[in-house]
């Protein structure tokens, strides 16, 4: 049976379905789409991934061991509708918050990873996400295994108020410690990485990579507009803009991400590489 659907983060449940590229609107056979790591074979548009897909596409098969699964936000401000939004996000994503953290292997080398789930409240960083990022960097430091963090976030989660702002400090402090200990930390910016996440741990890694055309920016377009910013360059707040302004190291297409990361892990972590089955 042939069906058309707008692409979402969900894997099409029916083999043989056709999908439409969100960018060029061309129809894509879903099997081709999956094989191409959810990159449009016609225009190269990198569609957003769930954390699970990202992990599957990037690290050694079945190597991911998830940690910190029991962490849940406490809604410290009793913010209007937050508990409902959290519950809805948990139901939708089957995750407890916007970050998956754990250990995986990359070409057999152990790495500590944190991967953003953008569909969980826009990947926003509250206390749980901040704690998971921090623990990931701490585990990397302790184990002497490189940290790799994939970001996709609207920024700090306003429903946790000042607690969220402090996660910027906490994660940055952890990154500083990791760096001091000589353990490599690689940050990968995916569509979109903005606000408080970009202005903290995502921007202070040893190496910063980005996916093509990813939205990368400090202030949302609406904020910039409110501040009277009217004329912006065509590529404003894209990975390409960040690269041409010296803010990131490389743009890496999705199909080269795994090999690029593996190579960096080998090069930067040579002194401390641990191997595992």
């Amino acid at each position, binding site marked *: 049976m042939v069906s058309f659907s707008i692409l979402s983060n969900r894997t099409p449940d029916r083999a043989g379905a056709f999908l439409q590229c969100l960018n060029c609107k061309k129809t894509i056979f879903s099997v081709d789409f999956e094989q191409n790591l959810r990159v449009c074979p016609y225009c190269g548009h990198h569609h957003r991934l769930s954390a699970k897909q990202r992990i599957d596409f990037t690290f050694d098969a079945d190597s991911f061991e998830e940690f910190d699964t029991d962490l849940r936000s406490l809604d410290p401000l009793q913010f*209007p509708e937050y508990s409902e939004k959290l519950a809805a996000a948990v139901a939708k994503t089957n995750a407890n918050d916007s970050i998956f953290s754990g250990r995986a292997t990359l070409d057999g080398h152990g790495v500590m990873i944190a991967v953003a789930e953008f569909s969980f409240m826009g990947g926003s960083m509250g206390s749980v996400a901040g704690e998971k990022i921090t623990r990931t960097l701490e585990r990397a430091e302790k184990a002497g295994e490189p940290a790799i963090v994939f970001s996709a976030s609207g920024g700090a989660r306003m429903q946790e108020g*000042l*607690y969220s*702002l402090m996660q*910027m400090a*906490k994660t940055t402090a952890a990154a500083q410690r990791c760096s001091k200990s000589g353990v490599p930390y690689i940050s990968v910016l995916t569509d979109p990485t903005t606000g408080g996440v970009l*202005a903290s741990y995502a921007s202070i890694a040893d190496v910063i990579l980005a996916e093509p055309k990813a939205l990368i*920016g400090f202030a949302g377009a609406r904020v910039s507009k409110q501040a009277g*910013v009217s004329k912006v360059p065509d590529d404003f707040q894209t990975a390409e803009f960040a690269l041409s302004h010296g803010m990131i190291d490389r743009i890496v297409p999705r199909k080269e991400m795994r090999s690029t990361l593996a190579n960096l892990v080998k090069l930067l972590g040579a002194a401390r590489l641990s191997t595992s089955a």
Partner: protein
Amino acid sequence: MAMDHNEWERPLRDLEEGVAKLWELEKKEKDPVKRAKYGDQAREFQAKLEGFQDVLYRNIGPWEQVLIARALKRPYTLDYVQSIFSNFVELQGDRAGFVDNAIVGGPAMFEGRPVMIVGHQKGRNIQDRQFRSFGMAKPEGYRKAIRLFEMAERFRMPVISFVDTPAADPGVESEARGISEAIAAGMYKMFQLTVPTIAVVIGEGGSGGAIGIATSSRVLMLEHAVYSVIPPEGCAAILWRAPERGSDAAKALQLTAHRAKEFGLIDDIVSEPKGGAHRDWPGASEMVRNAIAKHLGELSELTDEELRESRYQKFRAMGAFTSS
């Protein structure tokens, strides 16, 4: 709902003007009976004024707190620098091609001890506000701050930050020069320091723009200052698509000093003179000076490594989550 501090405080100011007029009449009046009457009236209104001020300030909500924190007459960073410190030498430039006037800084003397000052600076009149970019710092502002942090570490000077910004600059140039990296690098550098660091939120603690110079050993807030992850208007725009509902958002965000202290996210609240810092600059300066002296004294007892470690542990513990 008042939309700015002027409007909110108008009844108070009207009463003050009335009292002043009565005293003026009293002064000019020659007839002793009438003169006494004016005097009585003036005292009566003065008492009413004080009662009204008490009520007004006792019933301050989060939104009113925002209005006070933004008040044009509040002392700004350089006002405190002038009244609390001596020998201040402003140092400028990021040494990478740019200057920023929304963050000021340099060495100064605090009670006989050299310290490094870094703070956001707002302007009061139109030209000044533009010159200071409304206290919204660009990347070069944070990079200048980082340079001063490094200098403070080299010369063993405690770092005193004054926080007063609506937000970091969201413009195209700031984006092009890496405002996100600059803020992150500011925090990063502060975590490396082995000298005492104290941040005082004197007005608006606006999100990333604030925390870029405020990951300090001690974070203090003036009684009527606010500290928030997002401006209330921005929060209202996102939540309800209604920026005019800033008052509701301010309530939800709980951005007051008292809440921040209850949450354990700041270390101390600095009381303000009756009616707020803007009504008594010398009084406010004295309170800020005392608070800095107290915390600097405590921090000076710690070793270099204790300073760095305790600062890390303090921020490390911040978060509201459960693992059950």
